[in-house]
């Protein structure tokens, strides 16, 4: 008999090899206590959080917490039902109204997670005989949405406008086409040239979906994302987003101006065949989204943090994922997984948490220490972070 788990043996061996060097397991950290958006207790030590996607620090906002608590008492702990049966409460409609206002779009649809939003929208709108043209560095939820649907899938080189255009030109002109892009690519923290890419896509008759998971609330004059920042939001057919980053809760959504968009509620299986989000999450999310509409000062401070950390790490001699700070993510490139894990552990022992990212999540087989900044990080904390990076970098031999 074949053990179905034998296919995982290489990964099991790599993991055992890594742990045998004595480093702590980077993928089973537990937060024992969370004190604020930027401070938690990990392994009994107070730790600065620099790897949480909590870009706007909304997880402990007083108004957000109060809204959640009130909904818990008023509507109960959970909905026990699908959005299309008994699972749509007042709170779900309030979140959808808040999203429509936030993006100034006609339709909004809330999913139970951001992953399901991509999975559902992509697999439903691109069917047999249609083409999906997507960036090779797309998030796993986008790839899985492609795999779940029946469309023909055509990838192109990351952020390469010419590669995208060449492929669009070669496709049958009459075929349905969906171009999928992301505003911020979360591994390296780089942004997409959406202005050029969306223009090229539209010129070839394609519909455009942009995943703005890592830009919502932060990038663009109104925090609507990279497409807004590059003046292209009115050309985007579908924006996909999440509540688990800047909004500070959990859930996913799609907003659109497509006149027939509401039919998605009946045909999109990852929307229909799952329970809706609990009332607490909806009330907290609606309050958070509305506060993010007026968060210009926080956005400005987050940009200051991003620029200072990027400049400081560069000056210390670290190899970074982008030449300039483009988002709230700063990726520090490690020479290999072993030294990456050692550096990760040295930082954690020094009271600083970052994400250790490794293949297959990362492009080009890179090992990354991914830092994501928060608008609630103080200027002093950022200096403190740089001091800890310098000490760990020298101890592990990443910098001279």
């Amino acid at each position: 008999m074949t053990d179905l788990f034998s296919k995982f043996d290489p990964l099991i061996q790599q993991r055992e090899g890594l742990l045998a060097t004595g480093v702590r397991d980077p993928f089973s950290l537990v937060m024992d206590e969370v004190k604020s958006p930027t401070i938690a207790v990990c392994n009994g030590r107070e730790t600065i959080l620099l790897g949480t996607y909590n870009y706007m620090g909304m997880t402990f906002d007083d108004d957000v917490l109060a809204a959640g608590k009130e909904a818990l008492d008023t509507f109960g702990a959970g909905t026990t039902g699908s959005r299309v049966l008994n699972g749509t409460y007042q709170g779900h409609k309030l979140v959808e109204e808040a999203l429509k206002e936030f993006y100034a779009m006609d339709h909004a649809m809330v999913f139970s997670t951001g992953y399901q939003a991509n999975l559902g929208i992509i697999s439903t709108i691109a069917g047999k005989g249609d083409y999906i043209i997507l960036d090779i560095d797309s998030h796993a939820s986008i790839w899985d949405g492609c795999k779940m649907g029946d469309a023909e899938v055509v990838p192109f080189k990351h952020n390469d406008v010419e590669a995208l255009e060449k492929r669009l030109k070669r496709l049958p002109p009459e075929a349905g086409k969906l171009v999928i892009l992301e505003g911020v690519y979360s591994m390296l923290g780089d942004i997409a040239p959406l202005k050029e890419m969306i223009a090229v896509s539209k010129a070839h008759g394609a519909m455009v979906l942009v995943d703005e998971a890592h830009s919502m609330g932060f990038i663009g004059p109104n925090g609507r994302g990279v497409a807004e920042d590059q003046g292209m939001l009115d050309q985007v057919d579908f924006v996909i987003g999440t509540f688990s980053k800047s909004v500070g809760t959990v859930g996913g959504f799609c907003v659109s101006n497509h006149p027939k968009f509401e039919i998605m509620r009946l045909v999109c299986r990852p929307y229909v065949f799952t329970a809706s989000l609990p009332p607490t999450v909806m009330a907290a999310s609606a309050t958070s989204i509305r506060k993010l509409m007026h968060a210009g000062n926080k956005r400005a401070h987050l940009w200051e943090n991003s620029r200072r950390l990027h400049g400081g790490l560069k000056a210390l001699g670290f190899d970074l994922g982008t030449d300039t700070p483009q988002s709230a993510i700063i990726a520090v490139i490690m020479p290999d997984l072993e030294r990456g894990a050692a550096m990760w552990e040295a930082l954690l022992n020094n009271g600083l948490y970052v994400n250790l990212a490794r293949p297959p999540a990362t492009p080009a087989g890179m090992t990354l220490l991914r830092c994501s900044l928060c608008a609630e990080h103080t200027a002093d904390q950022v200096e403190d972070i740089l001091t800890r990076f310098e000490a760990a970098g020298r101890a592990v031999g990443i910098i001279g």
Partner: protein
Amino acid sequence: MTDRQTMFDQIATLIEPFNKKGVTVSDAATFQHDLEWDSLTVMDFVAAVEDEFDIIITMNMQAEIETVGQLVDAVIKLRG
């Protein structure tokens, strides 16, 4: 020389810069096991083939192509 042999030679030329291990290229050679290409190399190579012949080889088609010979036949078919 037959049309198929011409196509095989053209594909072999395109494989060359990616053939870091100097594997002998034949109809039966597989991309994954003989040439030992990872997904990134496959993507760059597919892009090179697509540009050379002005065609699209979708991921769905790529899933059916394991050997050099299968690729040669697929490209001939795609060019029509």
